[in-house]
């Protein structure tokens, strides 16, 4: 199956980003394809390189970057939602890219399944 994943919420405050990550990881390990992970609404906050959680906690941003690297994932952050919330080229974490909302619709067209994780 080809998946598109939409993440509506930022890291830590809501479990949405954790659930999306666990889902994506399981799908990839089972041999499915993840066409794109799109970060919208507060989801864009997953893409900040300045996140530095405590050592005994998971690093949500870094974990996405690494999964992206391991599986050549497209981690797409919405430019308009990002501008509102201060996620711009200056702060975007490795492996994420800032792009237009059309890329979410495209992923929805191309994927067999679109899964939304939110609040």
């Amino acid at each position, binding site marked *: 199956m080809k998946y598109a994943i939409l993440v509506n919420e930022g890291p830590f405050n809501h479990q949405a980003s954790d*659930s999306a990550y666990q*889902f994506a990881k399981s799908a990839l390990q*089972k041999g*499915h394809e993840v066409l794109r992970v799109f970060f919208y609404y507060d989801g864009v906050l997953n893409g900040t390189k300045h996140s530095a959680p405590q050592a005994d906690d998971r690093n949500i941003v870094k974990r996405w970057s690494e999964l992206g690297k391991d599986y050549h994932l497209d981690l797409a952050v919405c430019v308009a939602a990002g501008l509102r919330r201060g996620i711009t080229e200056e702060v975007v974490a490795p492996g994420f890219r800032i792009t237009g909302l059309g890329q979410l619709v495209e992923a929805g067209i191309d994927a067999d*399944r679109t899964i*939304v*994780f*939110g*609040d």
Partner: protein
Amino acid sequence: MLHLVNKSPFERNTLEACLKRATKGSSILLYEDAVYAALQGTTLAAAMAQAAKTHEIYVLTPDLTARGLDAASVLDGVRPVDYDGFVDLTADKGTVQSWL
């Protein structure tokens, strides 16, 4: 069709909203804080047992474990799945709708 519900039914209306619209025989996965809806002995247990007769209801075990709950505390008729099972459900049941 697969419906996803992730909020506690004691706090939000999303599970109720889903059950009102989900067609008979469609599947519902309870995950994150929605796993509390799958518990025995709550004020919602009777309604959930009823819902399990008209819908396939699943619950995500890692979200149970995280919260100090286990499959033994879950209502009869609610089926535990792990993340692999979550992925399989999305592949098998068609379009996925998240109730947010």
